[in-house]
């Protein structure tokens, strides 16, 4: 049961943007989203995912919680321009037949991020992160920033991390 930085990050149509300090939504996705009223409104841009929370403020007794439940499964995350990790569920509150893409974790016209992908929780503990975001397609190098932030969090409270996570093993 290995873990850590990983994810399905290969292929051609899913290839990454060149490395940058921050990323905007890739233009093809933005164009598509602008036509979808359940995701984007002309006045305010991307809606704000109501489940979006700062990782560090969702701690409850050595577990990460979201909406009163232990975090479990894969959720979307972004690292915002100031270095906060924000995560949330994929479910779209505007339409159960759709999902809430990464930009909705911040909301607005074209929210910029330092990195984005999926974060894997196992029984409320952080297990791994990757860069699976078709909206931002961040460069793999940007994952180092997330890795570093999580290592700092792990140094402060290793119990928030799965025993099989790379950060817990490194500590």
């Amino acid at each position, binding site marked *: 049961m290995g873990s850590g930085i990983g994810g399905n990050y290969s292929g051609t149509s*899913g290839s990454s943007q060149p490395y940058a300090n921050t990323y905007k939504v890739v233009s093809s996705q933005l164009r598509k989203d602008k036509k979808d009223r359940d995701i984007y409104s002309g006045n305010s841009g991307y809606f704000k995912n109501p489940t979006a929370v700062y990782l560090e403020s969702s701690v409850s007794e050595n577990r990460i919680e979201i909406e009163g439940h232990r975090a479990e499964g*894969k959720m979307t995350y972004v690292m915002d321009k100031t270095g906060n990790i924000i995560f949330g569920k994929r479910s779209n509150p505007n339409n159960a037949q759709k999902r809430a893409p990464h930009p909705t974790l911040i909301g607005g016209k074209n929210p910029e991020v330092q990195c984005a992908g999926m974060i894997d929780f*196992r029984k409320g503990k952080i297990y791994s992160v990757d860069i699976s975001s078709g909206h931002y397609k961040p460069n793999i190098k940007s994952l180092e920033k997330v890795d570093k932030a999580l290592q700092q969090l792990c140094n402060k409270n290793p119990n928030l991390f799965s025993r099989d996570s790379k950060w817990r093993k490194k500590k």
Partner: protein
Amino acid sequence: MIEDRITKDTDYLFDRSYDDELSDEQEDALLDAVSEQITKYGWPDTFNSWLNFLYSNCTSAESAMNFANLFWWFGGQDHVIPEPHKFIAYFYYRINYDTAKYDPNDVLDSIAITILPRAGFSEADLMTNTEYIPEKDPLIKAQVDEYAKQGY
């Protein structure tokens, strides 16, 4: 008998509530038991045994979702799942697609977007299909219909 032993190990792992409050030591012991089972019997036999438990013991929405949460915690999704659409469909069948009621953490979505790309189904790869939704996947829906037809 090997089959009896693997079944006993599987019962130990899954005949419990995901919501049980366990100490870190108890949780570690359970994860160790998962690793030991896979090492001892190999993933294909282990998964078959888990599947037998699912089909035999998890016939309500609640028990199926309890299994799904344990499956995720135990890391079953880190392995290749044979007939992945059929596996995921079982849960949607049991909960009648009512994820709002039975799956607050979107664990079924997580299982689908993990095991399908791993099995080569790129339509569930979020890098290329950001809007993938398992409940709308025709291959999953067909399997849900099949369970209903077979009277599971």
